[in-house]
């Protein structure tokens, strides 16, 4: 009797775990996209755009810095 209850109980746990996994897997995610590696293309594209913007910001920073330097030199002379 004790054995049967134990088997029933363990089965219940196993079923509930499987059910949970199934429920989780029915939620559609971009698994295939990520698995096939195509998401890396998007990541690269976004990274390139961001790098471009950052490089632009660095250039702008340098331009302002040069202007500040020129200005302080002009004040001195």
């Amino acid at each position, binding site marked *: 009797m004790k054995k049967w209850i134990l088997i029933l109980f363990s089965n219940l746990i196993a079923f509930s775990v499987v059910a949970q996994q199934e429920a989780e897997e029915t939620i559609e995610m971009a698994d295939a996209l990520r698995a096939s590696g195509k998401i890396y293309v998007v990541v690269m594209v976004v990274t390139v755009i961001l790098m471009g913007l950052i490089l632009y910001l660095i250039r702008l*920073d340098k331009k302002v810095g040069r202007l500040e330097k020129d200005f302080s030199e002009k004040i001195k002379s």
Partner: protein
Amino acid sequence: MAKLTFDLKNNWWKLIAVILVLYTVIGGFLIKVPRIAIVQESVRNQFFHVSMWFSMMILLTTSLIFSIRYLSKSKTKFDLLAEEFAYMGIILGILGLATGSIWARFTWGAWWVNDAKLNGAAICMLIYLAYVILRNSIEDEIQRARIAAVYNIFAWSTLLPLLYILPRLTDSLHPGSGGNPGFNIYDLDNNLRLVFYPSIIGWTLLGLWIIQLRVRVKELKSKLEDIS
């Protein structure tokens, strides 16, 4: 040929900004995220949409501090900083509204829903746009700085009730509203936190960089006006 080396002593935080923002984008796309029905992969928007609002809050609070300091010290520099911090905060807020609208379209089914959180955020942006208009409508510099500083305190104090208190008093579709503590489902996930917290710092530092550039240009301009 201009030297391409970066003065790291003064600009180390810009390097951190670049690293954190790149980490946000790369990590934000590639890490494992929790499986949530309807939201699905769009939960990754947390690193972009939600951090916009967090960064906005940091920048607008800094703007408030400079406004208060202006009122007590009357230094023009504080007024300039308050202005630029507020402008960058407004830009991040508008980006937050726009990205939120896109997210809402694909998870709730509409570009805009009459939700306490959404309407509150829109009203906040209008209040801050009034700050910009107010600044531009006053000719006298000292008067402008003083009135703008007082208005900034008023504008900031509407942020907390409109964005955080009122939405929690009513039902809301938006996470973190309707009596729930903020980020109940997402924040429990440690994977999300791994990118979310750095992303807030990254976007804030990037905003700070743009603010610094604008402040430097404006200071140069006023110096130029002084000598001519």
